[in-house]
């Protein structure tokens, strides 16, 4: 019992000591990162389906699927797709540029999420328009923050 308390107190102190190191992304830094992509152009909501489970058990591997509604023909296609987050150490998650052989503007991958937060996707279309979608996810075991055992 006594040992357990000591361990917990030690672990807590360790976590606090680490906090200054983790200059985490904030909603503001995420907005700045998104603005680097969008510039001053208008961003409209819609056309993107961002599929992440709303309740995440393990933030180290979070399955994510992003799909943009587009015919992907020469005249109407998605040129790029970006994913951002609010509270990981860095706001950027991934960027995909689609070439002429891309069959659908859709990818699936696994990402890390450090905390309960919002994940935002931004799509750039060939006509220059920008579309966005966001999803709030709850993370019970965070990635990134804890060190090795």
């Amino acid at each position, binding site marked *: 019992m006594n040992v357990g308390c000591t361990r917990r107190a030690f672990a807590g102190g360790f976590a606090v000591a680490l906090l200054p190191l983790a200059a985490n992304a904030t909603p503001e830094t995420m907005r700045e990162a998104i603005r680097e992509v969008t510039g001053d152009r208008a961003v409209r909501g819609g056309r993107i389906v961002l599929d992440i489970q709303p309740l995440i058990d393990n933030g180290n591997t979070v399955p994510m699927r992003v799909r943009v509604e587009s015919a992907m023909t020469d005249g109407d296609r998605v040129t790029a797709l970006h994913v951002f987050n609010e509270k990981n150490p860095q706001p950027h998650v991934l960027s995909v*540029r*689609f070439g002429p*052989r891309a*069959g659908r503007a859709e*990818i699936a*991958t*696994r990402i890390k999420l450090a905390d309960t937060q919002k994940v935002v996707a931004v799509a750039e279309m060939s006509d220059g328009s920008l579309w966005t979608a966001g999803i709030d996810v709850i993370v019970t075991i965070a990635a*990134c*923050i804890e060190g*090795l055992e």
Partner: protein
Amino acid sequence: MAAPLVNAPKRVRRGEVFEVRTLISHPMETGFRPGTNGTIIPRDIIEHVRCRFAGETVLDMALSPAVSANPYLVFYVRADAGGALEMEWTGDKGFSASYSTAIVVE
């Protein structure tokens, strides 16, 4: 050398959109975690994944440390003409891996 796993059909119909699933062994060390001695483990990630089919780009993906270890990626390719599906992964510490397979378009 990390051996990538790529799951793609061997034969597809002309004009068909087919799915490619890829997995590669890599720690994707974020550069934000302390190691056993308390110092930060240096960043070691895959920075880019590129895919070409029949000589033309399918996608070019830029990864950040927020992509999980052993990056898994699913994407879709349009088969207008047959050819080689070429994948390339590059990253920190000179990491490089590639994979190529022929896909027949009928």
